[in-house]
Protein backbone atom coordinates (compact mmCIF):
# COMPACT_ATOMS: atom_id res chain seq x y z
CA UNK A 1 0.00 0.00 0.00
CA UNK A 2 2.73 2.46 0.92
CA UNK A 3 4.44 1.30 -2.31
CA UNK A 4 1.44 2.51 -4.28
CA UNK A 5 1.49 5.86 -2.49
CA UNK A 6 5.24 6.07 -3.06
CA UNK A 7 4.60 5.45 -6.76
CA UNK A 8 2.43 8.56 -6.67
CA UNK A 9 -1.16 7.39 -6.44
CA UNK A 10 -3.95 7.46 -3.90
CA UNK A 11 -6.32 4.51 -3.57
CA UNK A 12 -10.08 4.70 -3.29
CA UNK A 13 -12.13 1.51 -3.16
CA UNK A 14 -15.83 1.23 -4.02
CA UNK A 15 -18.33 -1.53 -3.26
CA UNK A 16 -22.07 -1.84 -2.71
CA UNK A 17 -21.53 -2.78 0.95
CA UNK A 18 -22.79 -0.44 3.67
CA UNK A 19 -20.22 1.77 5.37
CA UNK A 20 -20.53 -0.35 8.53
CA UNK A 21 -19.55 -3.45 6.54
CA UNK A 22 -16.68 -1.59 4.90
CA UNK A 23 -15.53 -0.27 8.30
CA UNK A 24 -15.44 -3.83 9.64
CA UNK A 25 -13.47 -4.95 6.59
CA UNK A 26 -11.02 -2.05 6.93
CA UNK A 27 -10.56 -2.72 10.66
CA UNK A 28 -10.11 -6.45 10.13
CA UNK A 29 -7.49 -6.03 7.41
CA UNK A 30 -5.95 -2.80 8.71
CA UNK A 31 -6.83 -0.89 5.53
CA UNK A 32 -6.09 2.82 5.60
CA UNK A 33 -7.56 3.95 2.29
CA UNK A 34 -11.16 5.12 1.95
CA UNK A 35 -13.77 2.51 1.00
CA UNK A 36 -16.78 4.18 -0.55
CA UNK A 37 -20.18 2.71 0.02
CA UNK A 38 -22.35 2.56 -3.10
CA UNK A 39 -25.43 1.06 -1.48
CA UNK A 40 -27.76 2.77 -3.99
CA UNK A 41 -25.69 1.39 -6.91
CA UNK A 42 -25.32 4.95 -8.32
CA UNK A 43 -21.60 4.83 -9.01
CA UNK A 44 -21.52 1.32 -10.44
CA UNK A 45 -24.33 2.35 -12.83
CA UNK A 46 -22.67 5.66 -13.82
CA UNK A 47 -19.39 3.83 -14.37
CA UNK A 48 -21.10 1.02 -16.33
CA UNK A 49 -19.84 -1.74 -14.06
CA UNK A 50 -23.09 -3.32 -12.89
CA UNK A 51 -23.07 -7.08 -12.67
CA UNK A 52 -26.78 -7.86 -12.38
CA UNK A 53 -27.50 -10.86 -10.13
CA UNK A 54 -23.77 -11.13 -9.45
CA UNK A 55 -24.51 -11.45 -5.77
CA UNK A 56 -25.28 -15.03 -4.80
CA UNK A 57 -29.00 -15.05 -4.10
CA UNK A 58 -29.65 -12.12 -6.44
CA UNK A 59 -28.91 -8.42 -6.52
CA UNK A 60 -26.50 -6.24 -8.45
CA UNK A 61 -22.85 -5.86 -7.50
CA UNK A 62 -19.86 -4.28 -9.16
CA UNK A 63 -17.70 -6.25 -11.54
CA UNK A 64 -14.09 -6.07 -10.35
CA UNK A 65 -12.49 -3.08 -12.08
CA UNK A 66 -9.56 -0.74 -11.48
CA UNK A 67 -9.11 2.68 -13.09
CA UNK A 68 -6.16 5.04 -12.88
CA UNK A 69 -7.52 8.60 -12.89
CA UNK A 70 -5.02 11.34 -13.69
CA UNK A 71 -5.07 14.76 -11.95
CA UNK A 72 -6.86 16.21 -15.03
CA UNK A 73 -9.68 13.70 -14.52
CA UNK A 74 -8.95 11.43 -17.46
CA UNK A 75 -8.53 7.68 -17.23
CA UNK A 76 -5.03 6.66 -18.27
CA UNK A 77 -5.23 2.94 -17.52
CA UNK A 78 -7.88 0.43 -16.56
CA UNK A 79 -8.17 -3.25 -15.80
CA UNK A 80 -11.46 -5.07 -16.19
CA UNK A 81 -10.84 -8.71 -15.48
CA UNK A 82 -12.75 -11.18 -17.65
CA UNK A 83 -12.71 -13.77 -14.85
CA UNK A 84 -13.35 -12.52 -11.34
CA UNK A 85 -11.16 -15.23 -9.85
CA UNK A 86 -8.19 -13.68 -11.65
CA UNK A 87 -7.07 -10.40 -10.10
CA UNK A 88 -4.41 -7.83 -10.74
CA UNK A 89 -1.10 -8.51 -8.97
CA UNK A 90 0.46 -5.71 -6.90
CA UNK A 91 3.76 -6.00 -8.82
CA UNK A 92 1.98 -5.41 -12.12
CA UNK A 93 0.14 -2.41 -10.73
CA UNK A 94 3.35 -0.87 -9.41
CA UNK A 95 4.91 -1.41 -12.83
CA UNK A 96 2.03 0.47 -14.45
CA UNK A 97 2.27 3.33 -11.97
CA UNK A 98 6.02 3.68 -12.37
CA UNK A 99 6.03 3.46 -16.15
CA UNK A 100 3.22 5.98 -16.62
CA UNK A 101 3.97 8.28 -13.69
Amino acid at each position, binding site marked *: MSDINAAGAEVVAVSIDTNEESARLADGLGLEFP*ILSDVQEEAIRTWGL*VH*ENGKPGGGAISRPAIFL*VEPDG*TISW*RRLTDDYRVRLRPEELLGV*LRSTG
Partner: protein
Amino acid sequence: MNASRNKFNHAAWVGPLIVLIGVFTYFTVAVRFPDLRDSAIVNLLLVAGGAAIAAWGLFRRPNWKSWIGVGVAASFSLLFCWYVFVYSSQLPDPDTAPAIGAVAPPLELPDQSGRMLSLDNFSGQRVLVVFYRGYW
Protein backbone atom coordinates in the same frame (compact mmCIF):
# COMPACT_ATOMS: atom_id res chain seq x y z
CA MET B 1 -18.70 -65.75 3.33
CA ASN B 2 -16.85 -63.69 0.79
CA ALA B 3 -14.20 -61.67 2.68
CA SER B 4 -13.66 -59.14 -0.06
CA ARG B 5 -17.41 -58.40 -0.21
CA ASN B 6 -17.53 -57.53 3.48
CA LYS B 7 -14.40 -55.44 3.40
CA PHE B 8 -15.29 -51.77 3.45
CA ASN B 9 -14.83 -50.04 0.12
CA HIS B 10 -12.45 -47.25 1.07
CA ALA B 11 -12.44 -45.72 -2.39
CA ALA B 12 -16.18 -45.03 -2.04
CA TRP B 13 -15.56 -42.48 0.71
CA VAL B 14 -11.91 -41.47 0.20
CA GLY B 15 -12.68 -40.34 -3.38
CA PRO B 16 -15.53 -37.95 -2.51
CA LEU B 17 -13.61 -36.76 0.58
CA ILE B 18 -10.64 -35.71 -1.56
CA VAL B 19 -13.03 -33.95 -3.97
CA LEU B 20 -14.64 -32.05 -1.08
CA ILE B 21 -11.23 -31.12 0.35
CA GLY B 22 -10.22 -29.86 -3.11
CA VAL B 23 -13.31 -27.65 -3.37
CA PHE B 24 -13.19 -26.42 0.24
CA THR B 25 -9.49 -25.52 0.22
CA TYR B 26 -9.92 -23.48 -2.98
CA PHE B 27 -12.14 -20.99 -1.15
CA THR B 28 -10.28 -21.11 2.18
CA VAL B 29 -6.61 -21.54 1.26
CA ALA B 30 -5.93 -21.07 -2.46
CA VAL B 31 -7.69 -17.68 -2.60
CA ARG B 32 -4.91 -16.27 -0.41
CA PHE B 33 -2.19 -17.24 -2.88
CA PRO B 34 -2.52 -15.49 -6.26
CA ASP B 35 -0.86 -18.31 -8.25
CA LEU B 36 -3.01 -21.03 -6.70
CA ARG B 37 -6.12 -18.86 -7.03
CA ASP B 38 -5.71 -17.79 -10.64
CA SER B 39 -4.88 -21.21 -12.08
CA ALA B 40 -6.78 -23.29 -9.46
CA ILE B 41 -4.49 -26.09 -10.63
CA VAL B 42 -3.86 -27.73 -7.24
CA ASN B 43 -7.57 -27.83 -6.47
CA LEU B 44 -8.49 -29.08 -9.94
CA LEU B 45 -5.94 -31.89 -9.53
CA LEU B 46 -7.34 -32.80 -6.09
CA VAL B 47 -10.87 -32.84 -7.47
CA ALA B 48 -9.84 -34.90 -10.51
CA GLY B 49 -7.86 -37.31 -8.33
CA GLY B 50 -10.76 -37.74 -5.91
CA ALA B 51 -13.18 -38.39 -8.77
CA ALA B 52 -10.77 -40.94 -10.26
CA ILE B 53 -10.50 -42.78 -6.93
CA ALA B 54 -14.29 -42.89 -6.62
CA ALA B 55 -14.59 -44.21 -10.17
CA TRP B 56 -11.94 -46.83 -9.47
CA GLY B 57 -13.88 -47.89 -6.35
CA LEU B 58 -17.01 -48.38 -8.44
CA PHE B 59 -15.08 -50.38 -11.02
CA ARG B 60 -13.66 -52.63 -8.28
CA ARG B 61 -16.84 -53.05 -6.26
CA PRO B 62 -19.97 -52.05 -8.12
CA ASN B 63 -22.25 -51.77 -5.05
CA TRP B 64 -24.52 -49.01 -3.77
CA LYS B 65 -21.81 -47.45 -1.58
CA SER B 66 -19.57 -47.09 -4.60
CA TRP B 67 -22.41 -45.55 -6.59
CA ILE B 68 -23.04 -42.98 -3.84
CA GLY B 69 -19.30 -42.24 -3.73
CA VAL B 70 -19.18 -41.70 -7.47
CA GLY B 71 -22.36 -39.62 -7.36
CA VAL B 72 -21.04 -37.26 -4.69
CA ALA B 73 -17.56 -37.04 -6.23
CA ALA B 74 -18.92 -36.42 -9.73
CA SER B 75 -21.46 -33.77 -8.64
CA PHE B 76 -18.95 -31.70 -6.70
CA SER B 77 -16.26 -32.10 -9.37
CA LEU B 78 -18.61 -30.89 -12.08
CA LEU B 79 -19.84 -28.01 -9.92
CA PHE B 80 -16.27 -26.92 -9.17
CA CYS B 81 -15.21 -27.14 -12.83
CA TRP B 82 -18.27 -25.13 -13.81
CA TYR B 83 -17.36 -22.47 -11.23
CA VAL B 84 -13.72 -22.29 -12.36
CA PHE B 85 -14.22 -22.47 -16.13
CA VAL B 86 -17.66 -20.92 -16.67
CA TYR B 87 -19.29 -19.10 -13.77
CA SER B 88 -16.45 -16.81 -12.69
CA SER B 89 -16.08 -15.54 -16.28
CA GLN B 90 -19.74 -14.62 -16.63
CA LEU B 91 -19.24 -10.89 -16.33
CA PRO B 92 -21.12 -8.07 -18.03
CA ASP B 93 -19.98 -6.40 -21.23
CA PRO B 94 -16.79 -4.38 -20.49
CA ASP B 95 -17.64 -1.83 -23.20
CA THR B 96 -20.11 -0.06 -20.92
CA ALA B 97 -17.23 1.00 -18.64
CA PRO B 98 -15.34 4.25 -19.30
CA ALA B 99 -12.50 3.75 -21.78
CA ILE B 100 -8.88 4.81 -21.51
CA GLY B 101 -8.63 8.47 -22.44
CA ALA B 102 -12.19 9.22 -21.33
CA VAL B 103 -12.97 11.61 -18.50
CA ALA B 104 -13.75 9.68 -15.32
CA PRO B 105 -17.46 9.81 -14.43
CA PRO B 106 -18.35 11.55 -11.18
CA LEU B 107 -17.81 9.63 -7.97
CA GLU B 108 -19.18 10.98 -4.73
CA LEU B 109 -20.09 8.59 -1.94
CA PRO B 110 -19.68 8.15 1.82
CA ASP B 111 -16.58 6.31 3.00
CA GLN B 112 -16.43 3.72 5.80
CA SER B 113 -16.65 6.43 8.45
CA GLY B 114 -19.70 8.01 6.77
CA ARG B 115 -17.79 11.05 5.48
CA MET B 116 -18.67 12.14 1.91
CA LEU B 117 -15.75 11.80 -0.43
CA SER B 118 -15.46 12.70 -4.09
CA LEU B 119 -12.78 12.43 -6.77
CA ASP B 120 -12.53 16.22 -6.53
CA ASN B 121 -11.04 15.78 -3.04
CA PHE B 122 -7.91 14.41 -4.71
CA SER B 123 -7.10 17.39 -6.90
CA GLY B 124 -3.57 17.26 -8.20
CA GLN B 125 -3.20 13.56 -7.42
CA ARG B 126 -3.45 10.36 -9.42
CA VAL B 127 -6.18 8.15 -7.99
CA LEU B 128 -6.61 4.42 -8.35
CA VAL B 129 -10.33 3.76 -8.22
CA VAL B 130 -10.86 0.12 -7.27
CA PHE B 131 -14.34 -1.34 -7.68
CA TYR B 132 -14.74 -4.70 -5.96
CA ARG B 133 -17.51 -7.20 -5.52
CA GLY B 134 -17.91 -6.62 -1.80
CA TYR B 135 -18.24 -8.93 1.14
CA TRP B 136 -21.99 -8.58 1.63
